[in-house]
């Protein structure tokens, strides 16, 4: 009985990791495609980011001569922290491995661990670009963190637990919750956070290499070969995880709740559907917004923070 449950959990986690590892680069491809189409171009095929990563993985690794073990470890640590978060979060099913420990704060701090590792890697290159990207990325991360945490707290207070599967299950049993003002405010706050955390427009432009505007790209400028491949994959999986969590928390329908294996496939299908729709949404936001000045970004994030606090207050006031 326990062996069955364990086998199911391990399978579920493996499916989640595989789905995100393959699917997240495709989401990036969808984003690029939406942008291209909106600008009247044909654009690269959706699978282009996946091919780029495959190509990078087969190239030679080059490291900066002054770098230490930190730079060498950063790609695996960033990818490891993101993959761990993917493996335990309720994305395809509410019962993946260690789902008891899939606490919202664990996921938030695992993402923070990834950001910290990347920021340290940027400083380890001993170059101006690395430091610049690191400083900007960690500043934006530090300002996005409060909005993220308070939005998560708003959801947790409503469900009576900060355990993510518990929140998802609670939403499934109380479908009314999905449309409460608390949820809507938290949703907007989380969308702002996701855009900032995954380095999309209007906070960061992932396709620029101008020193005045680069944030994430400046930080990872010195990676090459498989190191760059891992970091790119980790960044894609981070966006994929955040979008998938958004889908699971706000529109959980379609997620597998029992222990039947076919339900997992249904879960994967719905996850792909919801994440693609969200990716198109993020793509449309990107097309219709210009990049903000670095020092206007805090205003945007402060807005997200205020919305998150309002989400908590409306929840307390309406019960």
């Amino acid at each position: 009985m326990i062996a069955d449950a364990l086998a199911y959990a391990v399978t579920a986690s493996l499916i989640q990791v595989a789905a995100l590892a393959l699917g997240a680069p495709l989401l990036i491809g969808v984003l690029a495609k939406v942008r291209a189409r909106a600008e009247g171009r044909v654009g690269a095929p959706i699978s282009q980011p996946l091919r780029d990563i495959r190509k990078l993985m087969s190239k030679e690794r080059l490291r900066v001569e002054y770098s230490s073990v930190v730079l060498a470890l950063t790609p695996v640590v960033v990818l490891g922290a993101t993959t761990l978060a993917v493996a335990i979060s309720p994305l395809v099913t509410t019962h993946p491995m260690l789902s008891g420990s899939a606490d919202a704060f664990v996921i938030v701090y695992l993402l923070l661990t990834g950001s910290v590792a990347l920021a340290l890697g940027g400083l380890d290159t001993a170059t101006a670009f690395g430091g610049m990207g690191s400083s900007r990325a960690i500043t934006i991360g530090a300002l996005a963190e409060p909005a993220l945490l308070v939005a998560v707290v708003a959801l947790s207070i409503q469900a009576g637990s900060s355990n993510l599967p518990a929140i998802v299950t609670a939403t499934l049993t109380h479908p009314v919750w999905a449309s409460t003002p608390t949820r809507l405010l938290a949703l907007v706050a989380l969308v702002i956070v996701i855009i900032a955390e995954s380095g999309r427009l209007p906070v960061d432009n992932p396709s620029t290499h101008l020193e005045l505007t680069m944030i994430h790209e400046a930080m990872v400028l010195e990676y090459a070969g498989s190191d760059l491949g891992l970091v790119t994959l980790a960044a894609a999986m981070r966006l994929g995880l955040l979008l998938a969590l958004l889908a699971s928390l706000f529109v959980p329908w379609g997620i597998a709740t029992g222990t039947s294996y076919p339900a997992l496939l249904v879960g994967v299908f719905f996850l792909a559907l919801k994440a693609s729709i969200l990716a198109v949404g993020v793509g449309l936001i990107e097309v219709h917004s210009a990049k903000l000045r670095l020092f206007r970004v805090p205003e945007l994030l402060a807005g997200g923070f205020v919305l998150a606090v309002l989400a908590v207050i409306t929840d307390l006031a309406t019960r």
Partner: protein
Amino acid sequence: MLLAGLACCLFAIVVANAVSAKHRAAALACTGSVGCALIFVAAGRALLDGRVSTFHTSSILPLMGFDLTLDPLGALFVAVASFAGVAALIYSIGYAHDELRSRPALSLLMLFVISLVIVPVASSVATFMFAWELMAVSSTLLIVVEHRRRPEARIAAQWYAAMTQIGASFILLGLLLLSSKDGGTFVEVTSHATGLSLTVRSCAFVLTLIGFASKAGAVPFHVWLPKAHPEAASPVSALMSGVMVAMGVYGVVRVGYGLLGGGVLWWWTIVVALGVASALFGALHAATSIDVKRLLAYSTIDILGLVLIGVGCSGALTTTGHPGVARLALLGALTLVVAHAAMKSLLFLAAGAVERASGTRSLDQLGGLIRRIPVTTALFCVGALSLVAVPAFAGFSSEWLLLQGLLHGFVDHHALTLIVLLAGVVALALTGGLTAVALVKAFGIGFLGQPRSSGASEAREVPWSMHAGMLMLAMPCVALGVAPGLVVTALDRVVATVETGGGSLVKPGIGLALTHLHGMIEPMFLLALFAGIVAFTRTVSSWRRAPARHVEAWRGGASQPTSRMQYTATSYAEPLQRVFVDVLRPEVDLEVTHAVESRYYEQSLSYESQVDDAVERLAYLPALRRITRAGESARRLQNGSIHRYLAFGLVALIIVLVVLA
């Protein structure tokens, strides 16, 4: 056993004074460590079996007897103090030289440790104040030990002495309000306090709170802390920042819960307000500090603020009838105290090792230490990761517990409690990211990259005894993170003696799991899974590949990159400083000299930025100036005329007679 340990510690002072300078620190550390180990075992036993043992010496004179009681709450702080004490003593074998190796300095260090152990077991007003003053005086003198080399230490000691004495007098006033005529032991005070009116009890609480909050470095009573902690020698600053500030929290819990038995909601609202202010102020200043020890000192203000938030929310929830959740919040706060003691002492010791190795503590002068002093770097990294609250390190487990306490407190329906809890959650959320900036800056700028000064490029690894002291503190940082359940179940028993309502909230086990409420974390399994993923990724990505080739960094066509092209700590924190310019009020000086030919070309450019403590500048310094002015004008009374003095005497006599009549 506790007394044997204390005796052994006192004996250590004698031994240290008898031995020659070369072996003095080692002799003190050996004997003192045995004493501290005995104390630690005594405290551990009291923690585990929950027994209360008392010791009392009677004397003919009033207020002269010694009353010591080892109860679970006190034992927790005794255990923390003695553990950190051993680490600091072992560390000082290699660290102590010149001034710190002198007889008085080492004796004071031992006395400081002893006072830290006595404060939590003192069980009468007189004994408590004696231990409190011993702690204050010994630490003040330890700050000035190196005053010849560093004149700033004198100013720091002046601030510290003044603030700590004012704080102590507030505590004394508060405790005297509560004391009865029959006696001053805490048991008598407790029974006497229940008969007092709420006004008197509130006055006593607020007075003691001011004193304890200033010891815990709560804003706005914190100004001494970022001056004193960095200026003290590193073992001393480790003890001050890790353990001594915790005594402030101990005081609030002991008086608020123990002597006054809970109190009313607004008391705890003040505590939370102090905590929120400290957490935000400390985190912001830590993120913008350049001096690594100053950065750590501000981070202490931040974490102690979070602890006060936990204690305050717990008190608030108790008064509104939710003892169960109140226990959880208090448990989170006390776990954070233990975790903070380990990680902050470790970081201060590591910062001292960096200073010893490279001769500077300014991050702008450091860099590249990971290649020169790898062991110290690794130990600093453990402390930094703990403080950032990376999962599977001590900081995360304790902050998670605290967050759970706040989160589940929202079942309350009292408006003020909800506001208090919301403020706590917001402060916790805001400080998380800022702490990450501060520690990434400290570690990334200080230890990675290329050296920024000759001191950093010629840094030498420190002696093994310093590593041993740090390693001792690194172990609890990891243990409390990987297997928090083992420690937290013991702490849960301590909380049960303080907050007696409500059942146990934590299931015994390796990880943390809440009973009644839905919430758990299993850091050990998370860590195992993470290690598996990392090992798998590493194997796959380097499968049949040539090892990485080391090449020059991309320089965009410019000349050979130098270490001056790297970001410094100042530039790293500049974006954040600009975002929070209204709170931090930095003094920025930009001087541009234009070329003679055209004002569109610059000849030279100098930029200076300094982040002073805004509270000190806007509140303390004007107050000090006013006091000084009042003192100056009072001097006019003394003009040397004997007639005037006689007149003063006559007037005073008449007033006394009138009052007595």
